[in-house]
């Protein structure tokens, strides 16, 4: 990667569901190894934005996008091997999901789909991903049990382990903490702080304080438009450039 090129570059991005435009031309970039926060009230287009980044918006009938999305300088929508691209992006959804397979099979699912054979290498990968996701100690003795029987917090960490199993370069988290307990939330926040050394992280969150704790820079989205992008700390201490940002951060609306 050429020095100076951002990891992810988004330019004049628009999105439609049917005839309704939900993202009205936004531009931003994400730098390598940073934790990039996206905050904003519900229905601002944050989830749609993530789905555009990992190219799963295509699965929704009637959806369309326009504009440019580049990773490492390469237009993401002109990459032929879509599956290969999606592997470079990890995604954690708001509601915890455990696939109805054993915990081991949950994490091994993606590598096996790409041809990895069972054996020591796969065992090692599963263990490493579960360790990185801070779940290994809790499940190491019951890797055979069903992933759907775990608690919400455990399933969310399982999702992170699954995401790590395909070695993403960018990890997207979409309000990962809304359905789990505070203790697990803290554990995952620590996990993210470690993971940033290896990858770039995009964190969509409704919790202003969470963005403050984790994000280097933050983008405030409102109704499908970007209001402001900047370093997190100044934005959240009342010194944001836009009055709307200050209002949102201090809880006046949203």
């Amino acid at each position, binding site marked *: 990667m050429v020095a100076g090129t951002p990891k992810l570059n988004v330019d004049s991005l628009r999105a439609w569901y049917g005839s309704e435009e939900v993202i009205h031309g936004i531009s931003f970039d994400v730098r390598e190894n940073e934790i990039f926060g996206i905050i904003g009230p519900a229905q601002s287009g944050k989830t749609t934005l993530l789905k555009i980044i990992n190219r799963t918006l295509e699965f929704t009938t009637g959806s369309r996008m326009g504009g440019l999305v580049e990773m490492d300088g390469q237009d993401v929508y002109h990459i032929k091997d879509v599956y*290969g691209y999606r*592997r470079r992006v*990890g*995604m954690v*959804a708001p509601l915890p*999901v455990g696939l109805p397979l054993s915990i081991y099979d949950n994490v091994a699912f993606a590598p096996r789909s790409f041809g990895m054979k069972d054996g020591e290498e796969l065992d090692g990968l599963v263990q490493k991903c579960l360790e990185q996701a801070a779940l290994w100690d809790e499940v190491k003795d019951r890797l055979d049990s069903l992933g759907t029987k775990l608690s919400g917090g455990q399933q969310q960490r399982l999702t992170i382990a699954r*995401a790590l199993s*395909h070695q993403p370069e960018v990890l997207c988290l979409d309000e990962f903490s809304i359905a789990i307990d505070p203790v697990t939330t803290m554990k995952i926040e620590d996990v993210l702080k470690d993971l940033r050394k290896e990858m770039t992280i995009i964190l969509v969150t409704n919790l202003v304080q969470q963005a403050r704790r984790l994000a280097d820079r933050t983008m405030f989205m409102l109704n499908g438009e970007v209001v402001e992008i900047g370093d997190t700390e100044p934005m959240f201490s009342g010194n944001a450039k836009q009055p709307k940002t200050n209002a949102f951060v201090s809880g006046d609306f949203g």
Partner: protein
Amino acid sequence: MNDSQRFTKTTFTQKKESREKWVKVLLFMVTLMMALPVILLVSFLVHKALPVLSLNFITDIPRDLMSAGGIWPAVLGTIYLVVLSLLVAAPVGVMAGIYLNEYAKDNWLTRIINLAVINLAGVPSIVHALFGLGAFVMFAGLGESVIAASLTLAVMTMPVVITSTREALSAVPMSFREASWNMGVSRWQTIRGVVLPNSISGILTGVILEVSRAAGETAPIMITGAAASITFRQGETVYYLLGEKFMALSYHLYYTSMGWKVPDKLPNPETGEMVPMTQAALEYAQAIPYGTAVVLLGVVLLFNSVSIAFRYYLRTHRKW
């Protein structure tokens, strides 16, 4: 507690409530009238079939101008039909169900396909028979045969498999598929690795239903190859060639109740002279249609009960 119990009932309320009770009783009787006649009729059938009911009836070949012995060739024919039609209807039906639930977009083509499945399910059995005659017996040159009849049955029973497959697939939550797609796993691999393993049981109930329908149908096989009687000699292994005519349980029931006349005289094996049958033999012969009906009914109800029991088991053993 009902409010009207706290106050003294006025005549108006009393009338309302007693009318209410009568209605409930009436409707219950009405419902009973659905189930009861059928149960009575079936018991009557079993009663009349008693002279022939034994394991031998199913395993033995017909003897003495079909007045004695068993109906094994018919049972075997039905087995052939069921297996062959299954081999065609199951893969095509399951794949069509997968297409409709996993791949089809919400457009006019999908709507037409949905309509076609529903209409295919509503085609009268005799029209399926005509189709089989025109397409498989005549056009494809298969002649009146096991294979033509099986293909006709396959087309007829496919909608059942398609509908059960769709239901089973749609019971798998969307979130599983999305979690899989997010990891860069392809659509088909997601289906194969997550969706199908968790809907296989629902699909199986559909397949069992298909089998039961294929076993019970008469009209489609009547003009595509079912035969009233095919002679097998004692000791010979009973089997059919796919290109031959065949006997089948459902057609056998039709034939022995409509076309066949119960003989009252049999040729004496030594002299060849026609000798009147004994009372016991006559009773046996007259019970054969009833016995056939009971066997056919038993097979079909057994399959359906298995399917129902299986569905119940599934509902109580969910993986999520």
